């Protein structure tokens, strides 16, 4: 079993090196400056793959080879603390029996117990994610429908300290890479400014920050996400500045719970993501624990919602405002406007359509279920006969067996 996931890992790791890099059409100017050569050499996922190989050799009693590989790993990644710990153990084993992972002598131990347990925690989480692989072909249950505009998607599993990167192909969503990540010091489910938690929900990457404008604490770049999203705001959640970002120069990776709420990756892994994903169209699902399902079973469960969406579309096409309004919740809010305040905007849109059927182009919807069952929907609203239309986002909530809209707006 172990061999299989390791094989998968190695295939994945080498596959990453071969995979064509998708054009990041969003803010390509920011990425046009050539990455320093040293960064290009550090392939994403490589350091972890080498660490796991050292574990495997050690477990197989091939400690001479493990030691040699560990020496090379720390030479290439001197700030990969976990690798240094493993290297220390393999060296120490030549002088004395090593009784536990990270068998640091007492002379070093006093100030280091916290760091030591963090490193052990990091090791456990890395192994956990590599042991508990998603079933082949399965996808996170949140990704019900993605459009061709969503070339990539990201899902974060806090329970496994893992980020999964998907490519959306003609055959559907394919897992192309996954990486160890760190979340907030206080864990997950951000609710307030300064609570040191990583938010949970469906988000989108909203920009790609130039690393030159950032402190090197953030590593080689940053991809802010739209926390608080509409659902968060509706629930009164506060705080901001949740990014995917990298690590400082003196740390290759951080403890599983280490950040102020951001999702932190090792710089080579972040670089791969930045090179790959497009701003605005890449969803980022952050879940306490991902549920992996076969692609079509997820879709099958969303039939009731699809019917509601179709009905809404038809209502809008029909131009019947009263009928249309039944799809909206009383506490509807669009960028600060209540339903009553927003109805005139709705009327304008309906008038412009003038009874022509409306198509929902590039439709995507992601389901987020916690205390409430919600749907985050995105589409281009194009009336027949028009070439283009506004890009709209809607947030729907299930009330009993009915789906209703509590946010709609042009994004």
């Amino acid at each position: 079993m172990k061999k299989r996931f390791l094989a998968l890992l190695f295939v994945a790791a080498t596959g990453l090196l071969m995979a064509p890099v998708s054009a990041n059409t969003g803010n390509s100017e920011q990425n046009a400056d050539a990455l320093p050569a040293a960064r290009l050499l550090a392939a994403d996922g490589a350091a972890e793959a080498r660490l796991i190989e050292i574990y495997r050799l050690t477990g197989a009693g091939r400690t001479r080879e493990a030691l040699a590989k560990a020496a090379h790993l720390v030479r290439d990644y001197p700030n990969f603390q976990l690798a240094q710990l493993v290297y220390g153990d393999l060296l120490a084993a030549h002088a004395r029996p090593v009784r536990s992972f990270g068998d640091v002598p007492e002379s070093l131990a006093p100030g280091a117990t916290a760091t030591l347990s963090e490193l052990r925690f990091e090791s456990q989480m890395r192994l956990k994610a590599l042991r508990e692989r998603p079933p082949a072909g399965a996808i996170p249950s949140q990704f019900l429908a993605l459009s061709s505009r969503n070339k990539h998607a990201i899902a974060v599993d806090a329970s496994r300290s893992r980020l999964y990167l998907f490519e959306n192909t003609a055959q559907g969503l394919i897992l192309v890479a996954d990486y160890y990540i760190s979340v907030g010091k206080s864990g997950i489910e951000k609710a307030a400014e300064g609570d040191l938690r990583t938010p949970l929900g469906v988000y989108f990457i909203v920009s790609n920050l130039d690393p030159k404008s950032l402190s090197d604490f953030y590593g080689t770049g940053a991809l802010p996400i739209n926390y608080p999203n509409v659902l968060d705001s509706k629930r009164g959640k506060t705080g901001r500045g949740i990014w995917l970002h990298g690590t400082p120069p003196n740390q290759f990776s951080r403890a599983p719970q280490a950040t102020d709420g951001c999702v932190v990756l090792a710089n080579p892994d972040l670089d791969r993501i930045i090179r790959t994903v497009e701003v605005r169209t890449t969803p980022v699902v952050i879940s306490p624990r991902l549920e992996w399902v076969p692609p079509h079973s997820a879709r099958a469960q969303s039939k009731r919602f699809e019917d509601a969406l179709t009905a809404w579309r038809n209502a809008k096409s029909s131009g019947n405002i009263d009928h249309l309004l039944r799809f909206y919740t009383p506490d509807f809010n669009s960028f600060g406007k209540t339903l009553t305040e927003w109805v005139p905007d709705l009327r304008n849109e309906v008038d412009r359509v003038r009874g022509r059927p409306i198509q929902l182009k590039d439709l995507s919807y992601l389901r987020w279920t916690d205390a409430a069952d919600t749907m985050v929907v995105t589409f281009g609203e194009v009336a027949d006969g028009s070439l283009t239309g506004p890009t709209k986002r809607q947030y729907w909530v299930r009330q009993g067996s009915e789906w209703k809209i509590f946010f709609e707006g042009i994004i």
Partner: protein
Amino acid sequence: MKHDCTPLFRLVRLFALAAALSLAVAHADEYSDVSQMLRVGKLAEAQARVDRYLAAKPRDPQMRFMKGVIQRDTGRLADAIITFTRLTEDYPELPEPYNNLAVIHASLGQNEKARAALEMAIRTNPSYATAHENLGDVYAKLASQAYNKALQMDSTNAAAQPKLVLIRELFNPAVAGQRAAPAPSPTVQAAVTPPAKPPAPMPPAPAAAKPTVTATAQPAPASSATPAAAPKATATLQAAPADGPAREVEAAVRAWAKAWADKNMGGYLGAYGQDFAPPGQLSRSAWEQERRLRITGKSRISVNLLNLSVTINGNRAVAKFRQDYKADSLAVLSRKTLELVKTGNRWMIVKETSGT
């Protein structure tokens, strides 16, 4: 049986043994034949050859070693353990039997016994033991540096730079035997290499472990079989203050053995004092004649002294050792006791007995 662990005696014994092994010119063909048979897998033939040889010369260490190898290769592990264990008792200075005991123990899952045996193998050469300990210290230091980086501790906390142990003389029988021997001074004595202390429990050092069995002879000097004159500079570790007389006695004993091997009748017979009591009621002249016949009648003699220990009591001394005597087709290993008396400025043998 007392094992004397001083470098001097170990040196002499090792040199003697190596010389004995190398000087078995008449039997070199036998050894290489058996080696060849083992190499091509003809275990039964090799076994037969070895058994035949050992029937005539049961104490031959090299053949006994090969017997152990064959026993192990044919799965007779218990017998192999006995063979190698006996070799370690008779020749505790050889690392190879210890190594092979470790190999067998490890194959039986007896890792602690394997570790102990390999540590003994290392200790057969005090230089290896020192290097091995030093290596452990260096590993410990490297480990602490790595741990510091792992924990991002500032390195003032780290283990101190280890002070490794310097080896002050070469442990090589050929080199040590030919080296000019400067007179020892008190400071030289104080700077003596500390005895190889048992290393802290550690996993078997990969460098020292030889999983493959070598049936070749221990590297032996090509020089003559006889032990060289005792290098006087080799400081002993005995706390006994009267080093001088003990050294003289050793020198006398070695000179006697050398004369014997060289068939130097003048030197040999001259080592026995006037008060020497020949064995079996022989008169002195009859005994001398018999010795002359026995010694000059051989084409080749080798006499090696193992575990030489000397006790002094005024002007009397007792030298005890194992005598590995080979002459032509004869090989006898026996315990020997020589009683010597200082006459003038020479120590002369007055009694010679063989024990079992």
